[in-house]
């Protein structure tokens, strides 16, 4: 960090009055850079391409970008890649929808009532620390081996971050607002609508960022089991036959979808939280 510099600027204007305003360096991150969205990923792609072209990155370690494109085209034309993507997205979106709904409801119940917290918070924290892979045999026993099991698993994976962050956001609402609400005597419903929900929104949106990516990650786990389509299924098969290029195609698809989903959530957050004045703006 550089020290703040006080620069005295003399600007002479036609009126011959001397403007001696102090101009200081901003302490925040400053203005938003245009196309910031592309800079990082393109940099990574450039390093990857250069490394592959120079022979530093051998194909055995990581397939070259152009080979990945070729594999992508082959999967698209020969092996119904689109169908795989759609069936994966279908599972992820369904699971995410249920997960978000459940997570928000539980966070509200547990955030607004001490009884709710004592009932729900413990089990959710326990679920957090259990690896999902280890739960799969149980879920098979409870929900079968079909779509239902897969959606429930993804829902539970994405429920956790939503719950944790929403609950935390809700509890960190400044106590002054609750006191204000009591002073002007509004009811519980209005309190929730005008104070709790907007106040918990930043937390919820942060939870959302974790949830969208974790729902995609959950696909890899659930599609290893009795799936006939999906990106996770494609990658599992490719692993069996040593098709590194197909695995990297899968990874790239995960990366792209994860990045797009995350950016969409952040963008929504910026729009929805425009009433806040933070360093983000």
């Amino acid at each position: 960090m550089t020290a703040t510099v006080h620069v005295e600027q003399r600007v002479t204007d036609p009126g011959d009055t001397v403007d001696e305003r102090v101009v200081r360096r901003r302490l925040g991150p400053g203005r938003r850079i245009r196309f910031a969205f592309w800079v990082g990923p393109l940099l990574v792609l450039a390093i990857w391409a250069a490394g592959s072209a120079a022979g530093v990155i051998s194909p055995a370690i990581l397939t070259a970008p152009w080979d990945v494109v070729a594999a992508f085209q082959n999967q698209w034309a020969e092996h119904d890649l689109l169908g795989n993507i759609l069936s994966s997205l279908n599972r992820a979106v369904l699971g995410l929808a249920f997960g978000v709904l459940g997570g928000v409801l539980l966070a509200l119940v547990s955030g607004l009532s001490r009884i709710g917290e004592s009932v729900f918070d413990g089990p959710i924290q326990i679920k957090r620390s259990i690896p999902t892979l280890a739960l799969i045999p149980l879920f098979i026993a409870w929900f079968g081996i079909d779509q239902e099991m897969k959606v429930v698993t993804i829902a539970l994976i994405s429920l956790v971050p939503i719950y944790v962050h929403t609950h935390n956001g809700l509890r960190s609402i400044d106590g002054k607002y609750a006191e204000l609400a009591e002073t002007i005597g509004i009811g519980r419903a209005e309190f929730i609508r005008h104070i709790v929900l907007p106040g918990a929104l930043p937390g919820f949106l942060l939870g959302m960022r974790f949830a969208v990516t974790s729902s995609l990650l959950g696909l890899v786990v659930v599609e290893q089991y009795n799936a006939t389509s999906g990106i996770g299924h494609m990658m599992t098969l490719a692993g069996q036959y040593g098709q590194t290029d197909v695995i990297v195609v899968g990874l790239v698809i995960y990366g792209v979808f994860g990045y797009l989903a995350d950016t969409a959530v952040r963008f929504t957050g910026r729009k929805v939280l425009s009433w806040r004045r933070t360093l983000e703006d």
Partner: protein
Amino acid sequence: MTPRKAAAAVLAAVLAIGTAACGNDDPAATLELSAALPEQVPSGTVLRIGDPAVQAVLGAAGLDKELTAAGVKVEWANISGGPQSIQAFRADKLDCSSVADIPSLFAAWTGTSTKIVFQSVGADPLQHPIYKLGVAPGVSVTSLADLRGKKIAYSAGQAQGALVLRVLQKAGLSQKDVQLVELTSTGDSYVTALGTKAVDVAPLGAQNVKIYEAKYPGAGAIDTGIRDDAATVYCLTKSVQDAAKAAALKVYVSVRTKALLWQNTHPDEYAKLYYVDSQGLTPADAKAVVELYGDKAIPASWDNAITRLQESADLLATEQKHDKLDVTTLVDRRFEPVETAAAGSQVVTGDAA
């Protein structure tokens, strides 16, 4: 009761109902394991089967009509191999699955009762082994005797693990003469372990040998000289005891026999339908894999297969400290004549079986 407490009580009740397991056992006619298999399949009988390679060819071979004509409805699961099928069996979400011979032993040792209802062998097992021993680049192993003192990848619960023990037995070595490295075989994990010299020797599926040799210069593989061609379909004992499912299974075993023989005579279609369409290989690779595995054969009698299974069971029991197991309790020989009748004159006898 305050509204808040009431809400909490309601939520707790919902939670309790939601988590209560709901059993749905529809009573079915039970069938003694010694009784003759019923001829008539009751309408609406459903078999839940994990058998992807056969599922892929049934339509093209025109055999799916035989199933529907007999009134058998199959609910296919894309499940094969030991760990996944045993998991589904435990949850009672699957009736049968196609596997090699080892999973049936592990099912018994882990407390899941199963019956083998189908046995097939390789037509020329030593020429078309399922597994070879991959050798890491720069390691000199040309015969089984060279294994002494080497680091060998070993996974206790998988067919690959049993194979390592059988190879050591054949080479006259014990576990103390080599260094067994605990490593589960998933995807191409053994290929990577060999290539990075984490182990000296590891059993590789024949299809992975080519990939391995292409990927790592100086890599090699040797034959085990051991038959590893056992292929079975095993079912939950509970499903075999269900009269309706047993009748349906009788039809399925017969149809599956014909499907395997069809695969032998239609290698190109089989390569396309299973390895290209369902497994995502390129046509050239698919053709190579089909040639690599060679033809399958239906044994005239299960005797030899059961003898070999008993040998594997005894070996695993001593080497891995499991209980002794009488494998005759794991096979249901009522399906043996069904299978041989379906194959007709195309059965193999003597040593080939």
